[in-house]
């Protein structure tokens, strides 16, 4: 089972943002989309979830998304936008319940609280969303998205998390927590597609990486295959070297060395 985009082209205004790209993600894996600012990562994700008009075809679990109704798609995949806003003073738990009303999850009643617990925000349910910090808000949105497709597999078919920079405003502890959560979702049979900026976390957690550069796919494959000196240096416009210790020494810190503490 897979999430596939074929020959996807997107024009916004009079500019061509994506030039007929192919993308594919497999259920049971974490697929990362990386690339520099403005390369078209968010646009690709928005094309995959039907948010922007695109040429080409998108298929989820073998079914053409243009043939599926909105509510059917809502039961198959959930989408975390890069930037989220909220119009009225909803509490955290009320925001998460919005996800509940969309998906088809069993044992629904306690899901919102469990989702909050999963993103490390147990006990935040009664607080106003707008009064949370940026990172807390991002995790609440993630909890809402999780609630929508809580079980990674439904009716024998995998469900999908489409996440646009899910860890961008999180501290390193919560980054690891959320990445673990994504890995766990994939391990239990679901599909995860995440736009990532942190290449270390990508290398650690992604099973497959697609690099977008100037609206084209620059490379795709395993992290080891994609995250190479040549590919990275070309895409990001600076000289990059992987697996290289800091020449000047000093303090440096990699998420690879961290271990999660229980509770």
């Amino acid at each position: 089972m897979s999430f596939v985009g074929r020959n996807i082209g997107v024009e916004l205004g009079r500019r061509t943002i994506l030039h007929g790209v192919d993308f594919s993600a497999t259920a049971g894996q974490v697929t990362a989309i990386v690339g520099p600012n403005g390369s078209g990562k968010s646009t690709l994700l928005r094309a995959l979830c039907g948010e922007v008009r695109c040429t080409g075809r998108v298929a989820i679990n073998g079914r053409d998304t243009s043939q599926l109704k909105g509510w059917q798609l809502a039961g198959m995949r959930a989408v975390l936008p890069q930037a989220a806003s909220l119009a009225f003073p909803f509490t955290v738990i009320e925001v998460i319940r919005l996800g509940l009303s969309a998906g088809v999850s069993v044992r629904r009643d306690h899901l919102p609280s469990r989702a909050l617990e999963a993103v490390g925000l147990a006990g935040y349910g009664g607080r106003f969303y707008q009064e949370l910090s940026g990172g807390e808000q991002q995790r609440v949105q993630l909890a809402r998205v999780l609630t929508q497709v809580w079980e990674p597999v439904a009716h024998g078919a995998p469900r999908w998390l489409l996440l646009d920079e899910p860890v961008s405003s999180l501290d390193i502890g919560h980054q690891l927590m959320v990445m673990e959560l994504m890995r766990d979702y994939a391990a239990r049979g679901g599909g995860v597609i995440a736009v990532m900026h942190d290449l270390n976390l990508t290398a650690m957690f992604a099973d497959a990486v697609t690099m977008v550069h100037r609206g084209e796919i620059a490379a795709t494959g395993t992290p080891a295959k994609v995250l190479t000196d040549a590919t990275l240096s070309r895409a990001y416009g600076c000289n990059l070297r992987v697996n290289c210790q800091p020449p000047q020494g000093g303090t440096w810190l990699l998420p690879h060395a961290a271990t999660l503490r229980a509770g």
Partner: protein
Amino acid sequence: MTLATCNEIAVADPPDRAAAARRLSLWLGLALLATMTASLATGAAGTSLWAALGDLAQGRALSRVDETILWNIRLPRTLMGALVGAALAVSGAVMQGLFRNPLADPGLVGVSAGAGLGAISAIVLGAALPAGMMALIGAHLVPMAAFAGGWITTLVLYRVSTRGGRTSVATMLLAGIALGALAGAVSGLLVHAADDQQLRDLTFWGLGSLAGATWGKLMAAAPIILVALLGAPFLARGLNALALGEAAAGHLGIPVQRVKNLAVLAVAGATGAAVAVSGGIGFVGIVVPHLLRLASGPDHKTLLPNAALLGASLLLGADMISRTITAPAELPIGIVTAILGAPVFLWILLRRRMVVEL
């Protein structure tokens, strides 16, 4: 921590505001019954509701005067006040949900102004119509024209702001401001052409009044308002999801375009009908939803019914004030709602700065 381990942990849900909102519905329902009774019992004439009810209970017939006052004046006025109050409050709440902006209001997108232009045209230009035609449609001319004006404004607004089947909320708001200004300007031109009697009519109508309530007007407005009021709760889930933005609502499986279309129809219908029978009554549509959001949260499932109940009670209360404070004369109710509503609105803005930063 992983999702799998989370499944085993039993977590208590925090107390939710939905239960509080449902309790509030009960109280608001009782309050509406009380204000409706009070409204039937109050008036410039000396007729007493209680004496009349006592007479009826003992099988005595009412005097002609009492019957006329209770049945032909106070009852339609009370029902109309309740309906118009509910319509204004609910169209405000729906509009705010649609625009994701707690400051949005039918007055803001020009629907009220358009309806007003229709009414003013009818008052000023109606005099030029042939006498035979006036005899035929005279009584209904102003309400019909106000209603038509509201609809036309909404349709134009829609043409301007909808591209390829999608409505841009920002364009719609700006277009609404432009349309409102245009309708206001044309109304101003027409006022120049009005004679003295028409000017008095215009002033009274412009400030809003329930004084003209008759069974006929009530029957003309009630079906549209009731359809809008009963239909609005079906939009609640969609409006809740829209708070996350149109794209996110779509990802939640909400048929966004259909929700928006229906919301606009509900607003245009309720506002047009309300303006037609009672003129421009301000602040109900913006104050009532605000107060309810403060009391029991922004969930539209309870917000919409509660807004109808509270809007009806508040407008009846304002109407009683307008009828009694300068008795036997009568203040336009719009003055009362503005004097009561505008400071409340300012207070809300001061208390919750967050409503203006969207």
